[in-house]
């Protein structure tokens, strides 16, 4: 092996200023990399955390939309529950009216009575819709709920009267 000190000459070594210059270049580059690291990596991290947060929040919102109404409903007053039950029952009965009407006899008397009953039903439906529009979801005032209940009861009575037309028509 050749002696390094014999092979290399003294002037082939970097001087102090050369070493300083080289290190400065390296240091500046590392600094840029650090900034880029913070910018890129942090940006990437921010994005990932942001996405994760959005997903978690979305899950919570979906869960809230799914479960809270049920919970809120369960916590509502009995009046509201009864109103809803009446509303559902009335809608079910109302859905069956067209088929029922087709089974009635076509006598003039029956038709006249049917027209009156249908007009009455429409009048009650208008009243219900008007009242519901003025009544906000969160408005659980007992008096207002009771009034709505009366309207649903009137609607069911009106439908019952239409159904009774079948019995009358046999007369």
């Amino acid at each position: 092996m050749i002696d390094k000190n014999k092979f290399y000459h003294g002037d082939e070594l970097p001087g102090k200023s050369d070493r300083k210059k080289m290190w400065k270049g390296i240091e500046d580059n590392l600094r840029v990399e650090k900034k880029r690291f913070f910018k890129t990596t942090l940006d990437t991290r921010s994005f990932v955390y942001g996405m994760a947060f959005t997903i978690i929040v979305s899950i919570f919102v979906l869960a809230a939309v799914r479960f809270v109404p049920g919970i809120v409903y369960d916590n509502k007053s009995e009046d509201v529950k009864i109103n809803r039950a009446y509303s559902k029952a009335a809608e079910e009965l109302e859905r069956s009216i067209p088929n029922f009407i087709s089974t009635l006899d076509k006598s003039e008397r029956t038709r006249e009575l049917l027209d009156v009953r249908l007009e009455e039903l429409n009048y009650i439906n208008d009243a219900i819709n008007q009242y519901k529009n003025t009544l906000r979801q969160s408005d659980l005032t007992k008096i207002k709920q009771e009034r709505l209940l009366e309207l649903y009861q009137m609607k069911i009575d009106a439908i019952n009267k239409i159904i009774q037309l079948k019995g009358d028509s046999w007369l």
Partner: protein
Amino acid sequence: MPKEILIEKALEGNQKAYKELFDKYVNNLYRYLRQFSSDSDRVQEWVQKAFIKAFKNLETFHGNSSFATWLFKIAINEMRTDFRNSSNKIHEEFEENFYADEYFTNGEFEWQDEMKCLLNDLDEMKKNIFILYEVEGYKHNEIAEILDISESLSKTNLHRTKKILQDKWFKMRGQHD
């Protein structure tokens, strides 16, 4: 501080540790690369780029080879890239013309200081192998890793290089005698 600790600290982003590693290896690396160019600015650039690249890829250094081997490999690649980009072809020696069996047999190679200028006439590969083996003390397997060649190529080239140097030196001496 041992270099393993320095590397560990450097990996954590400790710039002082970077600086210590730089101080430890810069002289060796610089004077090695200086054999391939007399332009000191150019050599400084190679050294700088080598350290920057080494620091950027420090996490890929797994200690399979020595840090110096790894650093030399990066530096030589930077040098080669620079040569390629600047179309700087080192003069290729037509060794057949200088091959002389009668002047050289295995194990008789003797370095002479005057041979250093003859090295500059050799191609970069031979020069690298010769200096890495004869001066820096690397083994052929390490040279193979640094230069990305096979061990046998390293050995063959070294053998040829010694023959060429020996022959050229004798010729040069003969001219002066």
